[in-house]
């Protein structure tokens, strides 16, 4: 990957943070501990956090301050705003439960 196409990444001037294991929809990922979950997922290449309720278009973090609600995910079963949620070791993150339940229901 060229520099231009580089993903979301830490400012190189910042000290590296230890990564911890979390699961994203059942898959294990290693994310920087204490980092905003939404930002950490973006750094791991996971910008898409949910789909819109009716049209089903992909959505990701937008305001990073708890206002827009676009970054909603479920952590250990509870709805949280991933932009305000720090990464913790062992957290289980699930995306888009709304559509997955619907897809399941129609399957």
């Amino acid at each position, binding site marked *: 990957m060229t520099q231009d196409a580089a993903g979301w990444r830490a400012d190189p001037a910042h000290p590296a943070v230890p990564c911890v294991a979390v699961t994203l929809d059942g898959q294990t990922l290693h994310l920087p501990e204490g980092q905003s979950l939404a930002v950490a997922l973006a750094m791991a290449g996971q910008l898409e956090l949910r789909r819109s*309720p*009716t049209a089903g278009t992909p959505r990701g973090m937008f305001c990073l301050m708890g206002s827009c609600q676009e970054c909603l995910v479920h952590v250990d*079963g*509870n*709805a949280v705003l991933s932009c305000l949620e720090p990464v913790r070791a062992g957290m289980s993150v699930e995306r888009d*439960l*709304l559509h997955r*339940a*619907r897809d399941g*229901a129609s399957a």
Partner: protein
Amino acid sequence: MHDTLVVGGGVMGCAVALHLARAGQRVVLLEKGGLCMQASGVNAGTLAIQIKRAALIPYALRGWEMWSDARQWLGSDAGFHQVGGVTLAFTQEEAEMLAERMEARRRNGAPIEMVGSNRARELEPGLSDKPVLASWCALDGYASSNELGMLFRAALANADVEVREFASVDAIDRLSGGYTARTLAGPVSASRVVLAGGMWLEALLKRDFGIHIPLICRVNQVSVTERMPPIMRRVVGVATGQLTLKQSQNGTVIIGGGWQGKGDPERGGYEVIPENLIGNLRLASYAVPALRKARVVRTWLGLEGNTEDAMPIVGELPGAPNAFVIGGVRGGFTIGPFMGMLLAQHILGQQPEMPIFDPTRAIVPSPSAAGKTTRRPDSAS
């Protein structure tokens, strides 16, 4: 000059106007805000026969029928869904009350059946294991109140009703052979007037007719969650009547039951009481535990004006020929369309399909208007 002037564009006023116009009258409707932006547009939309008062069951059944048939007279199904409903008792005491109340409603024609807690959970798998007894009514359902203003606007326009929104009636004067409403945009006259002002009826009657009908101002609270995967499929209520709960087609769950906030006719509903919000939500999650995973996104308050006995007032005002009133009932979304039709039948000189509710019973001699309860409206301005 119009045949009838309707003051107030909630479900009651709109329904009267629509039926009068369809019968050929020239009707004008004046609404202070937008159509159905007060009680009629913010209510929980529950059409549950089980929670209607026993004496009103025949009316509620006809109201329900009209909602189920809304496409016919309103031009849209108004989000009507018949999903069936369960009403729950969590204690022995509540079980006795439930059995007694449902029996009274059953006697008046409501198709209600008592069911054990296991059967209740079969009917509504979202229920917790807490209920000890339940009742079931296959008719129960809901409609979307928030769409009502838009639907009536279109239907009234089709019926050639002249609708003026954002037109507050500042006074009503009696003229020879009719009434004139004063508004900022000028006077509007008609041979008859129908007062359908919801909670504001009390003030309208006092100001323009010197009649005192005290209304209890109920400041009802409704909450809604964000969209959720399906967690329930019926309308769920409780024996005391203090919960209505259902998941709408879009996945949001609507939680009502008449818990109270702060409000008054001048300011509207202005303050949700956090304890009452939490109480209402706790009760809801006690019945349907999956709600604990929900986020509530909005709670609102609406004003419902109830007569002392919470029964309707529908009919002509004593001492004010050709002035009519409609309102006062608790839970009037369900029966509103039917009440509007009854009043229209009465005004048109037909025999109403069911007896109407003479407002005289609700009039009290008011201290400020002592001896003026039969005052003629032409001396009232």
